[in-house]
């Protein structure tokens, strides 16, 4: 069973990289936001605060794990898992480098569909956490999560449809290949700027990160859906959020920034992984920069933005793209 063995090994490496990435993304975020606010950030645990995630993790492991007396126990325990697992398996279809060596299952021909589907599952975790905690703040957070994610999933899916139209394939490996006519202008961010903008905004809303973090709006809902969670269960939610941040950045890179493409990838295939990582890192920094800049958006405006602006614009974008492809305009279609 060499295929199974290979897939298992790749998954193990991917999981290791993702979990390490999650740990250091928390440090990166805290340090970068601190610099953006003229502060220093964590610098006490180890050199430059590099052992901070270890300290945080140890602290969370030794915290008491509290379960509310009236909680719906099975769902209460299931919810954090439902948040983390979709975030992790999202990576299965993302080509992180050139050639099958660096790809797990990126050649499946419904990759884009899989991405939309798996991202949709993650909201169950948040909604169930809010429901099962038997806490008013958690319930309100969960309610907001379901409304918000359903509204923004439309725009997200439609922006991906435009990309799929451009590549004439829903396989993520093909989408990357379609962005390589030899120069940087082949990237879909230049050929599909509207779809890229919509994807960026809706993905941020899917992640429920600032400025769309109404799900856990501290000032109104204490901690929203995770109010009743502590210890490692809280850590799982935290992990889910950050792994999803990495996953969404990887998706943006794959859909709009040419994936692993870059100079000299044909000579040195390993270089493609570096390009991919650099692009993902740039997306992550952009996300953190956004969080440091924008205040939280009001709830009715969040809904208005999703339904009245992003969804119609995304539909129009799909129609225009389809028309341009049918008319055979240069740069559209393959």
């Amino acid at each position: 069973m060499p295929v199974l063995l290979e897939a298992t090994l790749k998954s193990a490496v991917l999981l290791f990289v993702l979990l390490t990435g999650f740990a250091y993304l928390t440090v990166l975020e805290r340090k970068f936001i601190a610099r953006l606010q003229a502060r220093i950030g964590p610098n006490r645990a180890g050199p430059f605060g590099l052992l901070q995630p270890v300290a945080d993790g140890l602290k969370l492991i030794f915290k008491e794990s509290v379960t509310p007396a009236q909680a719906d126990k099975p769902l209460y325990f299931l919810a954090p898992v439902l948040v983390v697992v979709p975030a992790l398996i999202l990576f299965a279809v993302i080509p992180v480098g050139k050639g099958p060596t660096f790809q797990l299952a990126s050649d499946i021909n419904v990759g884009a569909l899989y991405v939309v589907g798996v991202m949709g599952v993650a909201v169950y975790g948040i909604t169930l956490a809010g429901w099962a905690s038997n806490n008013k703040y958690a319930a309100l957070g969960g309610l907001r999560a379901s409304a918000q994610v359903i509204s923004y999933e439309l725009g997200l899916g439609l922006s991906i449809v435009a990309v799929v139209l451009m590549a004439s394939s829903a396989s993520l490996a093909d989408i990357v290949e379609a962005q390589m006519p030899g120069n940087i202008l082949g990237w879909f961010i230049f050929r599909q700027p509207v779809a890229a903008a919509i994807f960026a905004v809706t993905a941020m809303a899917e992640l429920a990160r600032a400025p769309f973090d109404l799900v856990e709006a501290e000032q109104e809902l204490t901690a929203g859906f995770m109010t009743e969670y502590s210890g490692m269960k809280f850590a799982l939610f935290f992990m889910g959020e950050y792994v999803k941040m990495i996953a969404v950045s990887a998706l943006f890179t794959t859909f709009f920034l040419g994936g692993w493409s870059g100079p000299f990838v044909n000579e040195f295939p390993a270089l493609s992984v570096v390009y991919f990582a650099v692009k993902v890192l740039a997306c992550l920094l952009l996300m953190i920069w956004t969080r440091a800049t924008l205040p939280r958006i009001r709830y009715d405006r969040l809904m208005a933005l999703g339904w009245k602006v992003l969804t119609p614009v995304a539909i129009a974008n799909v129609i225009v793209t389809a028309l341009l492809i049918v008319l055979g305009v240069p740069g559209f279609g393959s």
Partner: protein
Amino acid sequence: MGLKDVLTRLPVGFWTVLKTLGRRPVTIQYPEQQKPMSARFRGRHQLKRYEDGLERCIGCALCAAACPADAIYVEAAENTNEARYSPGERYAKVYEINMLRCIFCGYCEDACPTNAIVLEPIEFPTGYTRESMIYTKAMLLEPPPPGAPDTPQQTPPGKYDRAILPFPPIDESV
């Protein structure tokens, strides 16, 4: 917020935040770096001495009476000319301040007839246990001035009969 605002004002905001990257952090890394403090800052208590090394505290416990947080405990004992700690009849054998109760109001300073207890801008009380936050006399007492002997001292009879005045005079101008 219309499209015009998104295109004009959002970039300004993003740029403002990014510009901060070039600024020096305003953080003061506390234990290593410290802000200069006012000379009158009411920090930790210190028990003062006279120039000849004798303790100012005479164990009258007026500070304990004045303390609104009930943080001070004083136990007095008799001075003798063979083992003298302070001028006058008595000295503080036990002097404890519970730093967890103290609210640093400075009423003990006001109550003290000999200016023995002073809140100084030095070393803020910190600790891991409740016990370690009870500061004893040994921790509160300042070291004897240079050249002066520590207490208890052997003193000639009759020289230190009075606890407060006329010897040594207290400089009230400070």
